[in-house]
């Protein structure tokens, strides 16, 4: 637990290290981004040319460069505008997260740069995903973002969020407050790709509420080096039959410290929850958390943490927790951490693969968590990234 304490005592220090995003310039429109930057965004899941994205929100530093959505049934606004338009978004803004939770939530409450507000109207079923991008373009900048997503009754929405830094910068701080509301019978798929740099600190604070019969699916992918991530998104299943699933694929190179996990609070009967995480340490420090809290009868939830150690250095610390508050719950977990089994490597070598190819085949397979609704090109980018991160080691 010492690691966590260090992070908490350092909160103020981290904040002091970085320049607030509203004190640095931002770009005015997309044409100012060069090819290298556009490629970087693409590798983070944000494709500015893609035809199968229904909308794009792009924020660099504090400025919103793009905010457009092609369908009437979905509303997308910078959160600063949404707050004006909807009288402070009283039902949603800081309703799931306590602004006094920590130094980062306080900072964002007091100095909001921007963020997105996305709302799918009642019954609106969106086939293609919307993409949002939070992009730190200058060195040493602290970006403070607040996002709200509302999937109204019976709607379906898929959001791909790419968070990244300029290809040539190494240092920054990203604070992202996210409050998501999945209403009765609605479905929200949220896919987040992190593509940071070696001296970037990341502090997302996320809570999701899901009403009766609603579904929330989260996919989180982080394959590149980062200084420090601390995130523990929490999903509250409030209505009967609600479902939540978290898939995470995390790779920590040397020098990265990634403390992440998911929590599902099963607060209504017949709710279902699943947390699956695959982590690889190439010398980095990973804390893979998972916490299932069963508070109502007839719930079912499962937690799976698998970790692979691919370097002599590094730490993977899996912390799966199950917490039952009533008798009639069905909760389970499996966790396994270790190196690649030699017999698996030899199995592939006996088919003619070199030791290196055998190892990458196993690593690729290990990271091959089924990510629902992922567009083909993003899936390909991820496969490439897995390939690259393995080759680079």
């Amino acid at each position: 637990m010492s690691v966590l304490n260090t992070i908490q005592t350092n909160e103020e220090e981290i904040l002091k290290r970085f320049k607030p995003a509203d004190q640095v310039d931002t770009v005015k429109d997309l044409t100012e981004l060069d090819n290298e930057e556009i490629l970087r965004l693409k590798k983070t899941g944000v494709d500015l040319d893609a035809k199968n994205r229904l909308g794009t929100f792009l924020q660099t530093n504090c400025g919103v460069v793009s905010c457009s959505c092609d369908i009437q049934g979905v509303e997308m606004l910078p959160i600063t505008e949404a707050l004006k338009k909807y009288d402070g978004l009283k039902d949603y803004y800081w309703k799931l997260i306590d602004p006094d939770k920590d130094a980062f939530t306080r900072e964002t409450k007091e100095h909001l740069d921007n963020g997105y507000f996305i709302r799918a109207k009642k019954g609106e079923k969106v086939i293609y995903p919307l993409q949002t991008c939070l992009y730190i373009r200058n060195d040493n900048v602290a970006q403070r973002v607040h996002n709200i997503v509302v999937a109204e009754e019976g709607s379906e929405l898929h959001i791909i969020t790419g968070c990244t830094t300029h290809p040539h910068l190494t240092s920054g701080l990203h604070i992202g407050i996210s409050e998501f509301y999945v209403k009765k019978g609605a479905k929200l798929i949220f896919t987040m790709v992190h593509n940071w740099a070696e001296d970037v600190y990341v502090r997302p604070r996320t809570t999701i509420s899901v009403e009766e019969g609603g579904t929330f699916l989260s996919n989180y992918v982080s394959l590149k080096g980062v200084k420090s991530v601390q995130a523990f998104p929490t999903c509250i299943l409030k209505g009967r039959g609600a479902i939540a699933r978290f898939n995470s694929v995390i790779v920590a190179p040397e020098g990265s410290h990634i403390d992440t996990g998911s929590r599902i609070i099963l607060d209504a009967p017949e709710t279902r929850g699943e947390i699956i995480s695959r982590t690889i340490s190439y010398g980095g420090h990973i804390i893979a958390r998972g916490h299932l809290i069963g508070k109502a009868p007839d719930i079912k939830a499962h937690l799976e943490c698998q970790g692979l150690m691919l370097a002599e250095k590094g730490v993977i610390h899996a912390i799966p927790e199950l917490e039952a508050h009533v008798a009639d719950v069905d909760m389970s977990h499996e966790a396994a951490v270790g190196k690649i089994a030699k017999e698996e490597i030899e199995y592939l070598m006996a088919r003619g693969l070199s030791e290196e190819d055998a190892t990458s085949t196993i690593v690729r397979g290990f990271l091959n968590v089924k990510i629902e609704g992922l567009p083909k090109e993003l899936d390909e980018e991820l496969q490439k990234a897995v390939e690259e991160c393995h080759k680079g080691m």
Partner: protein
Amino acid sequence: MLHIEDLWVDVHGKEVLKGIDLHIGKGETHCLFGRNGSGKTTLLMTIMGFDGYKVKHGKITFKGEDITYMPLNERAKLGLGLSFQRPPTLRGVKLRDMLRLCGNGSDVGVQLAIEYGFEGFLDREVNLGFSGGEIKKSELLQLLSQNPDLTLLDEPESGVDVENLNVIGDMIRRLLEKDKHRNRTKSGLIITHTGFILNYVTADRGHVMLDGKLVCHGNPIDIFERIQQNGYEECAKCQF
């Protein structure tokens, strides 16, 4: 094709093989009989080149090359193939991709899987939740993709129900080119306990292993009948 001369092998510091001599010619299939623990699997694993099988003395030559200390994957590339008795599960790796890897990118294995009614397994993770018979089929399909010149089979019939023995037998016959009566180039070495496989695949020669030595050689069906009648005890006596 394969020449083994006076092969002595240790496993975990224990002497398991004690002077094996074995010659398998091009196009020949040999059977290996013997009690559990006599060293049959060790011989196969040593020929294939797995770690932990330490050659203390002797020489293995395959297709004219000394492979005694050659790495595992190079032996596979040279034309050796082995079906695992209890292969590991490869999480996240689909059988379809595995078959392509074995065939160096070719789709032969995938097509054969369809031909043998195994297409339902192509998108499943390799060996995950496979039954005994399904593992055997998956192993043989991988070998058919790999197309080795010498196939090492460790109890190919174990865990397979009677209905599926036919399919397994057919796959092995295909691997060993049993339909070719002239110019056959594929060879095999098969460990069998039950001898059932002899009903499906003809073998040219049989050997009995006892305590790390090959003690008896001859027609495999004759040997197997003798073992069935008198047990391995007789083979032990025959040694002296």
